[in-house]
C-alpha cells in the first residue's frame, strides 16, 4: 500500500484512516515516512542516540491523536510537528540545549557541542565530498537553523508550512534559513574547496 500524501483525496484518505485507527494505513505511513522522520530528528537534535525512541513515540502519538489531522493540509507538516513537540519535551527532561535561539543576535548560529563522546551523526552519514565538508558545520550549527534547512531543502516544505511546524513567523524562518545557509556556504567560499 503506497500513499502519496500530496493531493487532497490522498490526505483525506489518510485523515479518515487515522480517525478509524486503521493499522494497515499506519504501517504504510511508517514505511513511507520512517527515514524522513529519523533524518528530521537527527537534524533537530544533532545526535543519533535517542532518536529511535522518539520515532516510536511519534507514531504512537499519531495513533492517539489521529482524529486531530483533518486532511486539509499535507501530512508531513503535521507529522513533523508531533515529532518536534516530543523532541522538545525530551530535551527539557534531559536539560539539553533549548531550541529557542535568539534570532536577533548577530553572529549567532553556533552553539557549543553537547558533551558527548558519540561521533557526529553527520560525519557518519556523509556520502559525498561536499557532505563531508558540511558535516562539522552542521554539527555546530544552531538546532533551529539546522531544522529550517532540512525542512526547506530536504523536505521541500513551504515557508508557511515550516512556520506552522516551528511556531515562528515566516520572517523568522527565512532568517534562520539565510543564516544557516551562510554558515554552510562558508565551507565553499574563497576557493577552499575548489570552486
Amino acid at each position, binding site marked *: 500500500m503506497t500513499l502519496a500524501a500530496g493531493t487532497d483525496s490522498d490526505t483525506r484518505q489518510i485523515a479518515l484512516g487515522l480517525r478509524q*485507527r486503521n*493499522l494497515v494505513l*499506519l*504501517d504504510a505511513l*511508517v*514505511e513511507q515516512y*520512517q*527515514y524522513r522522520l*529519523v*533524518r528530521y530528528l*537527527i537534524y533537530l537534535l544533532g545526535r543519533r542516540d535517542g532518536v*529511535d525512541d522518539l*520515532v*516510536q513515540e511519534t*507514531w*504512537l502519538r499519531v*495513533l*492517539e*491523536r489521529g*482524529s*486531530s*489531522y*483533518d486532511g*486539509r*493540509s*499535507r501530512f508531513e507538516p*503535521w507529522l513533523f*510537528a*508531533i515529532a*518536534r*513537540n516530543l523532541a522538545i519535551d525530551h530535551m527539557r527532561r534531559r536539560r539539553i540545549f533549548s531550541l529557542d535561539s535568539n534570532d536577533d543576535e548577530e553572529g549567532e548560529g553556533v552553539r557549543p557541542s553537547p558533551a558527548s563522546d558519540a561521533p557526529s551523526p553527520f560525519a*557518519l*552519514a*556523509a*556520502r*559525498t565530498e*561536499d*557532505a*563531508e*565538508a*558540511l558535516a562539522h558545520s552542521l554539527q555546530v550549527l544552531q538546532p533551529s537553523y539546522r531544522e529550517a*534547512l*532540512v525542512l*526547506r*531543502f*530536504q523536505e521541500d516544505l513551504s*515557508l508557511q*508550512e515550516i512556520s*506552522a511546524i516551528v*511556531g515562528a513567523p515566516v520572517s523568522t524562518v*527565512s532568517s534562520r*534559513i*539565510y543564516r544557516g*545557509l551562510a554558515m*554552510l*556556504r562558508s*565551507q*565553499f*567560499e574563497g576557493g577552499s574547496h575548489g*570552486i
Partner: protein
Amino acid sequence: MGSDGHERFQHMIDESLAGTVQEEQSLREHLQSCAPCQEYLAASSRAIAGLGGFSFAVDPGLNAKVSASLKLRAQQIRATQPGRRQLVLSCILALMLTAVGSLFDLRLSGLIATVFDLQRMQVQHGLIALWILPSLCLLLLFPILPLLSAGGSNQNERNL
C-alpha cells in the same frame, strides 16, 4: 559595483534559494556579468546540494518494533474507550428514561401528588428537574463523547 550592490543581489539570491521570492530579471542580468555574485550563488547551491549527500542509517528492525507497539497501543485504546455498540445502547437507554419520565409526568403526577400530599405542579417540576432533564442531557451527550475524548491535542499539531 560597491559592496552594497553585491549585498543587495546576494540577499536576492538567498531569497530566491529559500523560496521567499521568485528570481527577478534584474538578478538574472546581474549574474551574467558579476563574478563575485556568481561565486556566491555557486557556493550556496553547492551547500544546498551538499545537504543531499547524507544518508542516515535506520535500524532495520525499527519499523517492525513501531508496528508492534502501535498494535498494542490500539488494543489498549479499544479496551478503555466505549465502542459504538455501547454508545448506541446508552443512547437508547437515555431515550427510554426520558420517555418514561415524560409519561410519569403527564399521566401519574396527579397520583404521586395525592400519595405524597404534594401539589401536582411540585411533582411535575421535580420530575422535570431530577429525571427528564438529566436523561435528556445524557441523550445529547453520549454521541459527542468520542469527540471530547479525542479533543486534547497540541495546538501546533492541529490544522497545519
